[in-house]
Structure formats: C-alpha cells, structure tokens
C-alpha cells in the first residue's frame, strides 16, 4: 500500500561526476528543474555523489528534511545502484525507495548536442521522480549458499583456484575434459620471463590437487547440464569412460608397454600430432591422474573385438582395466562455479599465406613448445619434419592477432613467447633467428629485461607484418628454403628472408565451444567471444550471473602470472559468498494477487524456473519466491493482470513512460 501522494517527499541529487556529466549536462539547471517537480522536497547537485560526502548528503537530508524517496541522477545503476541504496539504508529509509537516472553512460558520454542532451536528461529525471513516488518498501531476498564449489577446467587457472578454495576448507569439484589436468601450461617447456621449467612449477600443484582431501578431481569429464541459481546449483557432469579404473590403477603403466601395438601409431594430440601414441596411453609423463586412457576409436578390441588384450594380462591381479565401462552422469550440488576453460590457439591453417599445412617446415608456436620439450616427440631437440636441424629460423609474430581479417585483438603473450622460443631454439641449435614483429609488447615485470637479453643474444628483429611464406626460390640461395617476404619498415624496403624453419606465433582465441559453454552457464560473452566480466576494473572476475566467476584465458588472453592472480581473485570471490553464508538478491520477484487470480493457468508453463504452480485448495496460481528470478515474463502474460512484479510494477512503469513523454 503506498502513501497518499501528498505525503511523498522526494530528495533529488544530480551528480556532476567531475566534468564527466557536468561537461555536457547543465547540472545546476537540472537540479533546479527537479526542484519544481511534484513531490520534490529537496534538490541538490554535487560534484561526486558516490563519494563519502556525497552519500552523506543523502543520509543527512533524509533525516533533516523528512524525505521518504530518493532519486540520484548520475551514472549507470549497474555501477552505483548498490552504493546509493546502502546510503539510503544508512539514512534510515528502505533502500528500495530509491531510483537512479543514468545521465552519464546514456547521456553525457554519448551525445554532443547539449540542448538535446539536456532535454533528454530532463525527461529521464522527470520519469524517475514520477516512478519513485510509487515505490514501496521491499526486503531483499536472502539466498543461502551451498559451500561446495565447481571449478570447470583443470589448467593452471582451475588448479590454482581449486587449491586456494580447498586450502580454505571448502570442498571443490574440479572437472576437466582432457584425461589429465595441466591445460596448455603442461605443454610448455619453459615459461617467460624467468625461463622456469613449466613442468617443474606446474606438477607440484597438480600433485597437490590429486592429494588434497577437499578436491574431487574428475578428469575426462564435462559439464552436461546446469540447473538452479547462485547458492543452489545442480550440475550434471558426464564422466567419459577411460576403461581403466582410477581406483584400482597403480600407475605402473605396464599396460601401455604390453599393448599389442609394439610401435605407437596414433597421432598424438598432446604433441600436436608431431608424435605418436598407442591406443592405450597416458597424455604425458606427469599426467594427473596417473591413469592411462583407452581410445576406443583406435583400440583393436573396440574396433573388431579380436585383440589378445595383453594390457589386461599385464595388469594382472589388479584388474584395473575394464572394457565394459560406461559413460556416467553424476549430479552434484554446488553453490558457486568458477569457469577456467582456457583458450584455443588460432588455427594457423586459416592464415593461408603462411603455408602452414602446406610446407612441412612451417610450425605453430605450440608445436615448437613440444619440440623443445624434453618429454616431447624429439626429446628436446629441434628437428624438422624432414629430419634436419634448422640453421635459420623465422618467427612470425601476430598470426591471427591484430588483424582485421582474422582476430582484431592483441593476444598479449605472443611477443614474450616468441622471444622465449627464439632463445630456446637458439640454445638448442645455434641457428640464426629472425623475429618478425609489428610492435614489441613486453610490459610485465622482468619482460623488458628479457627483451634486452634476446637483443644481446643477437637475434634479428625485423619490424614488419609478414606478407607471405613461400618455397618459390628466386635464386640459388633460396633453393630448398622457405622464403619469408616482409616489408622491413624501419629500413624501408621489402625483404626476402630464406629460412629453414618458420614458426608462427599464433594468437589466443576463445575455445571452439565457448558459445555453448556460456549458454550452459547463463553468462554473456564480449564481441570477441571471450566470457564477459561484470566490469573490467571493478569486477573483473565476476559475471553478470551471480555465483559464476571467471579465471584465466577464458575471460581474455593473458599470461601465467595474470592467470594465477585472476584465479586467486575468483577463488576469493567465491569464498566471500560462501563464508557470508548467503547473498542478497534484488527483490524484483513476481507475486500473484491471489484474490485476483482466476485460475486460468496461462502462467504455469511460462516459467523456465518452474516457480509457478497451482494451489491445490482453489486452483489459483502461486509463485515460489525462492525460485523466482524476477524476469517479469509471467507479469506481462497474465491475461487479467493478477500477477505483479516487485520493483517493476505496472503502475511504476506506466509512471516512467508517461513521465518521460509528458510535460505535465
């Protein structure tokens, strides 16, 4: 029930936001205008409403002027609605007797014509003043938070988040779709700028995950379905069959040794196809869990049913191999989710001019990581596909990055890893190395020093975007080589650089299934396809969906230090809500006015959260407040207006519409 109009006393606050708003909107005139609107008791303008003195204005005025509604004209509610509501509450008023007017993001920052911008600001303010008069006090809903956490993705981001949470005493499900955790980092040899061995810093963390009593590790598994909402998620995980039991396997690997394939024949995905594996295999020597996987596409027993099954014999009385394993669906309850699903490398075949896939000695950076890695297909030697060691190498920067024709963004890590690969290749082969770059982006701690180191190692740096890689020789010096054609922009002429090996520094992209994954978790993505953070500065690990957090490259390209930092931040955000025990959600739920409902049932099937059901006693509809997410679809659909929405009542919206248009 609202008070009679004459009792409504509104305080209106117009923010200058420095010159962000005041530079375009005449804030004093706007405050004056507000003063003349019906029910406005106080109208002020102030430089920074969101600062402490600004918030104090509101608090004191509520008390001194007996205000019972507040309007703030400033930035987007997405930024500061919570801030101002808290101030209203501190002033002793219900925080939902408040309305915000966006005159910055949606007026002063986007309109040049001052007259028209001010006209718009006045209309929006008038609408808010009319709307807020109809607001009623509301209480936010408290949602309890289940303490368990789901971490999706077992790369360094997921691993670090899982360990942080587990160490804090929370139970974590770490779900990874590869047979082992480790992600891209497990494929690297050394990491920049310190040239730490990637395995040496990663594997202890991987073992810690395996050992940790608070972590349930499910590899070779994927999230299949998600239901629920923050604090109360029900997740269905598909566990693919390894055909080797994790509980019974002791990690001796004799089954692999004993496989009827004496020679490995299957192209090895972990080594980017450069090596071979058997149908029963461990992804890499330090894999966690140390349990082999059988690949049914290539295993003779699965293909024909007629194998001697020497693997099972070798396993002996451990009986760990079970060829009848089935895919399992497991459902778990968690309160929060951290997405750490990583990136995929740009597919170099798309850059046809560089000849990847056409010329055997054109490699991607990831392939080279495997070459220089001691546990890779060549034991750490840089040996080309034709068996030679390269004497000259060209490293092409920005393949699939900073390019209108492929991806427009900078992938952030490629300059540094290109320097690293230059160093490693030179170390292994003594080759002459050319780095062909557009800009050298080495901003991090120790990164500039690393660049200097490479300069001192006499690597050639040529500034220019490579136009093509060709095997077409113009003279004898180019016979049998790959020729890199590039404009050397600093020297001012086009060069042809014959090399034995070309390395393409491919950029980072969202994973191929990023769109499905984000729909599954009900989050948005930015234009590039990376998952969207709630705010790049104020909330870089939150999403717009409460309870779902982001860590690592799935949110945008970044290196390992930043990934780990962000992953810790995501774990902290999850911990914050778990330890608080509950979160407050916007009380914008729908409700049925029971005596108005005729039991027509139109609403029941419209709710995707099954929040609406019929009361057994009288056949009328009722909405479960805990399940209602507050979209308002049922409100618009109710044929007789029997459903209303808190904070978005028909009456409130009509006032806003009429306020924005009518000058009365």
């Amino acid at each position: 029930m609202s008070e009679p109009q004459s009792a409504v006393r509104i305080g209106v606050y117009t923010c200058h936001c420095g010159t962000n708003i005041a530079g375009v909107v005449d804030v004093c005139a706007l405050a004056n205008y507000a003063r003349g609107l019906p029910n406005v008791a106080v109208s002020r303008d102030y430089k920074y409403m969101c600062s402490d003195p600004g918030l104090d204005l509101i608090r004191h005025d509520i008390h001194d002027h007996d205000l019972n509604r507040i309007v703030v004209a400033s930035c987007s509610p997405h930024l500061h609605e919570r801030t101002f509501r808290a101030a209203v509450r501190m002033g002793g008023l219900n925080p939902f007797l408040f309305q915000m007017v966006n005159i910055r993001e949606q007026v002063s920052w986007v309109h040049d014509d001052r007259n028209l911008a001010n006209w718009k600001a006045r209309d929006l303010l008038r609408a808010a003043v009319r709307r807020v008069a109809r607001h009623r006090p509301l209480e936010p809903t408290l949602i309890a938070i289940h303490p368990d956490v789901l971490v999706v993705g077992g790369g360094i981001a997921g691993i670090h988040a899982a360990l942080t949470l587990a160490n804090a005493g929370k139970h974590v499900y770490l779900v990874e779709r590869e047979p082992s955790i480790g992600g891209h980092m497990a494929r690297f040899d050394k990491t920049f700028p310190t040239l730490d061995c990637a395995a040496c810093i990663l594997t202890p963390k991987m073992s810690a995950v395996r050992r940790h009593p608070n972590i349930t590790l499910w590899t070779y598994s994927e999230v299949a379905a998600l239901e629920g909402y923050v604090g109360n998620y029900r997740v269905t995980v598909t566990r693919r069959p390894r055909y080797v039991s994790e509980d019974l396997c002791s990690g001796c690997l004799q089954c692999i040794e004993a496989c009827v394939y004496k020679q490995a024949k299957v192209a090895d995905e972990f080594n980017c196809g450069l090596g071979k594996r058997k149908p029963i295999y461990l992804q890499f020597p330090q894999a966690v869990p140390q349990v082999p996987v059988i690949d049914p596409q290539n295993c003779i027993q699965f293909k024909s049913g007629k194998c001697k099954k020497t693997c099972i014999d070798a396993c002996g009385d451990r009986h760990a191999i079970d060829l009848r394993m089935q895919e399992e669906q497991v459902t778990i309850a968690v309160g929060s989710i951290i997405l750490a699903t990583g990136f995929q490398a740009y597919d170099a075949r798309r850059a046809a001019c560089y000849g990847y896939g056409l010329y055997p000695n054109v490699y991607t950076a990831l392939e080279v990581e495997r070459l220089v890695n001691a546990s890779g297909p060549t034991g750490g030697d840089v040996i080309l596909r034709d068996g030679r060691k390269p004497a000259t190498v060209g490293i092409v920067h920005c393949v699939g990055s900073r390019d209108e024709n492929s991806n427009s963004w900078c992938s952030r890590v490629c300059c540094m890893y290109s320097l690293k690969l230059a160093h490693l290749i030179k170390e292994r082969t003594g080759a002459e190395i050319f780095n062909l770059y557009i800009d050298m982006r080495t901003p991090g701690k120790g990164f500039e020093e690393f660049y200097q180191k490479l300069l001192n190692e006499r690597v050639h740096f040529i500034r220019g975007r490579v136009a093509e890689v060709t095997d077409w020789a113009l003279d004898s010096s180019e016979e049998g080589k790959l020729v890199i054609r590039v404009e050397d922009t600093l020297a001012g002429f086009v060069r042809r650089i014959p090399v034995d090996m070309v390395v393409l520094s491919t950029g980072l992209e969202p994973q191929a299934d990023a769109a499905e994954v984000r729909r599954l978790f009900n989050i948005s993505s930015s234009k590039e396809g990376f998952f969207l953070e709630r705010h790049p500065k104020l909330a870089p690990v939150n999403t717009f969906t409460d309870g779902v957090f982001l860590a690592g490259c799935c949110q945008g390209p970044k290196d390992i230090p930043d990934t780990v930092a962000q992953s810790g931040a995501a774990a902290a955000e999850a911990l914050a809500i778990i330890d608080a025990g509950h979160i407050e959600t916007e009380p914008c739920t729908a409700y049925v006015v029971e005596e108005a409902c005729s039991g027509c049932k139109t609403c029941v099937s419209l709710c995707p959260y099954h929040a609406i059901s019929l009361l057994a006693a009288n056949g009328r509809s009722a909405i479960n407040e805990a399940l209602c997410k507050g979209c308002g679809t049922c409100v618009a659909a109710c044929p007789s207006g029997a459903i209303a929405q808190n904070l978005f009542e028909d009456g409130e919206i009509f006032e806003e519409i009429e306020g924005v248009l009518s000058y009365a």
Partner: protein
Amino acid sequence: MRPKVAFYWCAACGGCEECIVDLGDDLLRVIEAVEIAFWPVALDYKEKDLQAMPDASLDIAFVNGAVRNVEQKDMAELLRAKAKTIVAFGACAQLGGIPGLANLSDSRAILDTAYGENGAPREEYGVDGETLSLPGLLDAVLPLDGVIPVDYYLPGCPPTPNIVRAAFETLLGPDRPPKGAVLAPDHALCEQCPRRGTRSETLAIHEFRRVQACVIQPDTCILEQGVLCLGPSTRAGCEARCIAANMPCTGCFGPTGRVRDFGAKALSAVASVIDAREDQDVASVVDGIADPAGTFFRYSLPSSFLERKCGK
C-alpha cells in the same frame, strides 16, 4: 419517496434496453422500488421533459450505448447535470462497444461507404416550415466517460440479468462501492467457467482455429482446442453463458480492475502461449488470427490506449 431513475440509450443496439425487460418478473419489483422518470425507449418522454427537471433531481441515470454523435454527447451532458449518479450500462457505454469499431475508420470514410455516390444526408432539412437537423458525427466513437464523468460501470453486451439485479440492489442499498467501480466480480471469467478443469497447465498453441472452421467439443476448454477464447482476460459475472452455448468468450465484460487496456493484455496473454520460437514460425501462427483489432478490441477500442486509427 421512491428513488427516481432514468434509462437512456446512445449509439446502441437496443440489447441493453431489452435486458431491463429480461429481468422478467423482477421488473415488477423494480418498478415498485423506483420511479422511472425518463425512459424514451419504453415510455413517451421527450428531451424537454428532461430539461424541465431540476438539476440532480434524478437519483440514478442508466445510460447505455456509445457516444457517436453530437446529440448523444449533449444528452449525456444533460443527464449528468440532472442525475446524482450516472451508471454506464453495458459494454458500449463502458468501453465503446461494437460501435467503437467504427474507430478503425473515420467519419468521412464511413459516410462515403454507407451512402456512396448518393452522398451523405444533409444536416438540415426544411419540412412544413420547420427545420429538422441531423446530429453530426463526432470524429470518433467515445465511451460514456469520454464525455462525462461516470460513477459506476455495468459491464456486458448486454449485462446479464443477474448482474443487473445485483446492481439495482447495490445502488439502491446503503453500502455503495467507491466511485468508479465496475459492478461485477473483479477476476477473470475462467473462475466461473465449467470447463476450467480441462485446460492444461502446458497449453501451447501452434495453430489458431476459427470458430466457423471447426467443431468445438462441448466439454473441453475452448482455448485448449485452439479456438481463441478471451475468457482468461475478461471480467467474470456472466457465469460463462457463451461457453455454455459452446461458443468462445469474446470479451464483452471488458477488463479486470488491474488492466488498463483490455485488448493489449488479451493479445499479450494469447501471444505468450504460442508454440513457436523462430521469427517465421511465430509469424505463421499469428497469421491464424485474421483480424487482431476486431478480435482483441472488439468491444474496447475507444477505451483503449490508441482509441482510434491514426490520422493520415
């Protein structure tokens, strides 16, 4: 002193007048309880009789029909002056009614269509030395409250005898509802519909069937059968007479108290349960509603937000 009542009709079909007669034996009780001081349809009263009455001397004036021409507007204003209470009687007075569909056109076009090349009648005729004048058409059809403030509304096309009986009792009794009230229950027809139990909770329409193009099964919810029934949007009170006659509700009792535009809300409700997601699929289901304006705004066009067709 018995209360004095008046009945008047504006742009009407006569059905609302008939429904007074439809009270049957109760009509005798009515004329015992009240003095009918003005009822041009049934008794020989003229405008000058009304003019002669002192202001506010009538207790209740029941006015049916929409306001289409100048005479009706003038009479409405006169009745407002002469009566303490005005009741908009029936859908036409409350919402504009069927005559309201004229607002899909304009007066010029209507006259042209009706009279063709013969031309519309002149507004004045001289006869036996006197001048007869025809009242001009207003630009648009209006509900009664478009020309005068209205105290109560009696919905229906026409209001059913039970509603009328109840209205008489309420208005003549000691406890009047607040001004502006609609004298009928404030929830939708489904509450009173005998077929309510047969409507499923998962109704989703993939094809709209027109009444004349199918056979409606007698014991199942009509909307469930794909035939547009506006029962869910329409105010109850008629006890689902049309449904009892195996015909869908067309919305004559108008909106419930929580709805401002009947047609828009009915349209929203019907569209929400269409079983299609792609643009093209939705369009082809919607094609099955041949005349949305006539279907959803059949009785309520003049009282809707847009009121009438846009100008040229």
